[in-house]
């Protein structure tokens, strides 16, 4: 049976089609999930894509966490279902308290779109096992509110528990504390990532194909589970 990976569409989701394409290229079956529908349609994992879920005129992700679909996603994530939040999805995961910290306005005060070098710090999470620790990859980054912040205690805890999944290299594009680009929860099934691996899956349209590993990783995780 093919692995089914759900991609949630909030009304203002933008990279949902791209996430579905990445899921397909990784060899899984993408399933479109609608924000008003609590039913996850028997998916094995969920991607919360980039965008501006409900316009994000309040704090990014602040309204999405209360959407019907998130009720089920939060419940299933607590039971171990792999969930990847990309960009706006990362913001939703923080607002949902599935991940610690918050994402605030870039320190430059400008939206930034660039090909970003990252170091994969941890390949123990559900979404990073196809990488080697220390592996350097380049994927697009595009955000206006991508600055990861948390208090010192939380940051130390994340570092000590190996829960920093990816770190910015060469340039810190948004002022994230400790160059953090992505983190995971203690169980390793929930990952939030500010850069966009779904835009680095085809040589034609991406700077590299090095983002595909996130999507193939979860397939292995699920097949082995």
């Amino acid at each position: 049976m093919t692995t089914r990976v759900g991609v949630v569409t909030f009304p203002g989701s933008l990279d949902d089609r791209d996430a579905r394409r990445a899921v397909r290229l990784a060899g899984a079956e993408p399933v479109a999930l609608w924000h008003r529908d609590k039913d996850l349609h028997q998916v094995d994992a969920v991607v919360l894509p980039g965008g501006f879920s409900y316009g994000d005129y309040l704090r990014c992700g602040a309204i999405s966490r209360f959407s019907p679909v998130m009720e089920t996603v939060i419940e299933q994530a607590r039971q171990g279902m792999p969930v990847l939040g990309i960009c706006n999805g990362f913001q939703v995961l923080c607002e949902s308290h599935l991940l610690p910290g918050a994402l605030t306005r870039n320190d430059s005060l400008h939206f930034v779109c660039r090909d970003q070098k990252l170091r994969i710090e941890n390949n123990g999470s559900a979404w990073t096992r196809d990488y080697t620790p220390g592996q350097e990859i380049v994927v697009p980054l595009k955000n206006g509110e991508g600055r990861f912040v948390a208090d010192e205690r939380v940051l130390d805890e994340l570092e000590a528990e190996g829960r920093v999944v990816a770190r910015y290299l060469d340039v810190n594009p948004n002022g994230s504390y400790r160059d953090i680009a992505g983190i995971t929860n203690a169980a390793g099934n929930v990952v939030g990532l500010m850069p966009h691996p779904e835009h680095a899956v085809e040589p034609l349209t991406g700077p590299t194909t090095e983002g595909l590993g996130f999507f193939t990783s979860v397939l292995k995780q699920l097949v082995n589970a």
Partner: protein
Amino acid sequence: MSLDTVKNAEQTPDAAQPWAELGLKQDEYARIREILGRRPTGAELAMYSVMWSEHCSYKSSKVHLKQFGDKKPETDAMLVGIGENAGVVDVGQGYAVTFKVESHNHPSYIEPYQGAATGIGGIVRDILAMGARPVAVMDPLRFGAADHPDTRRVLPGIVAGIGGYGNCLGLPNIGGEVVFDSCYQGNPLVNALCVGVMKHEDIHLAQASGAGNKVVLYGARTGGDGIGGVSVLASETFDDTKPAKRPAVQVGDPFQEKLLIECTLEIFREKLVKGIQDLGGAGLSCATSELASAGSGGMRIDLDTVHLRDHTLSPEEILMSESQERMCAIVEPDKIDRFLEICEKWDVIANVIGEVTDGERLEIFWHGELVVDVPPRTVAHEGPTYQRPFARPSWQDALQADAPTAERLARPTTGEGLKADLLKLASHPNQASKSWITDQYDRYVLGNTVLSHGEDSGMIRIDDETNLGVSVATDGNGRYTKLDPYTGAQLALAEAYRNVAAGGAKPLAVSDCLNFGSPEDPDVMWQFAEATRGLADACLTLGTPVTGGNVSLYNQTGEVAIHPTPVVAVLGVIDDVTRRTPMAFAEEGQLLYLLGDTEDELGGSAWSQAVHDHLGGLPPKVDLERERLLGEILIAGSRDGMVDAAHDLSDGGLGQALVESCLKGGRGARIVVPEGMDPFVFLFSESAGRAVVAVPRSEELRFNDMCTARGLPAVRIGVVDGDSLDVQGQFTVALAELKDAHTGVIEALLA
């Protein structure tokens, strides 16, 4: 004030009316009275004033724009032409592409962020209204001097507005232009282009037919913003003595527009609309009168049913409001329920506000009273036409006589001098890297961007399976056009055409945004007449019809007009985007060929501006047959794998093109000046019809044979090699030094 009904207007023929304040001329007001056989009501006056504005009626320009139809080239590609929201072009495999470039100049100067943001919003709705999914945007921009203090106010706001709106819609921004020149100091140009894709059978038109069909207004609520945007703001010269015009600028909500897009596309998929029109300039006045005028003629609207943001609005204000993110659809009665259901799914407010009638009048009611009763064609399509006087400016001859000859403008004669000028050009704000600006735009979203910023054209894939794609380039050189408007407009087309071909796509069609000063000035009107004539002639020769666009006049502060700036967008199609040609020199050892003829042509050049701050002489000559041949060679080279990189030569000539292609690929080049050619002219001339290409060694023979057989001059000028740009016998400059000069310029001035 009591309600000014039609009955009231009949009874009080002599009541004073604010026609002048609404931007109408006395004879125009008289004409309205003649059409109606009475004085207009306040609501009717409001409608005529916005619809007869320069911006909506093209009253000064339409006698000249006619040429785009009269001289239309024969082509099978055009599915929908001028007159609809946007033109539609057949790109094969059952796909149709619609694209259009439009201006939002005046609002963007008054209120940079919202002005630019709503410029994107407006053009995107035009594309959507044709039945297409919007898939990319581009922004040709012009600003005052880069180091002028007001540029620091205007530019960051405009860029943030374009990014803020476009990024939130999920539309990749794939190109455009940024040009600085003090002539745009009080009148920056913010043009916005959108591309949309659909299947042939999905094309929708703006017409209301079938008595009994419902008129649905959906999207944002109607508020008091943007009242008079097209009339008192966009159709007058800026003047310090008048009150601030900020309230005439609309305010955008991109999230609402995103919902409107998805909702409308779902409505299209279920085939629920008979006709559709977006609400942009002139708001509901425009949508109702245009829909009715293009349909059977009759329509009845009940203004009380319009959802309002502000309940104190008068019927005049509701009709004139330019509140954003609204659409108007004509729906058959049995499809209304499903239509409203889809709107509800997307949280989009929708309401039936009227219906199509079998009469010939547009009737609008307020509180049960008739406040508008007009023949819709007289509002929408039968506005005034002006034959504005025009004459060749008295200063034109002196300007053209001031040619940048070696005697007048000192040219570098040593290798060191050439290098210094090359660096001066590469670091001039007009030629320097624009990444500080373009990095604020999302170029990746939708996952189909094949070429974008910094490339000659933006290219997107439109079919994942077949790799069919389209590309668009926009160009316009105000300096060339000032020197010779006829040639300048043709050069804009030639450059955009060449840019599309350089990427490997076949140019198919044109959209244009004609930015000029006041039509009331005969000098400006001459520039306009010459530029449109030049563009229409060139479109005919190149076989690329104008499918639509927009005219922006009154880009003028006091007596000072901008350089005439026709911006030309060319759309091309490519069967297989994996064959596209990027501009980066990426492979060591590849051979560099200069295609075309290089002459001593520096009038209006980037060199004359960057080094001498000079504008005079004549622009480069245009040879459209040569452009076509060059295009064919570039397309064949791309398709058959004979060319791995191509870059068109334009601003800054070969020198600047080499700098850009080397830096983009991170590779140097060894260049030899062809025998008998002056090194300065070789590097800095801006002769048209040229490109530099990188040819793999294994393909050299085949490529040379092709150029020889077709009669295109092609001279080998060097090889991709090393980590410096080495012009042999003249100078060497390290890539690192070039990069230092070329990057960081804009942010140093603005950040």
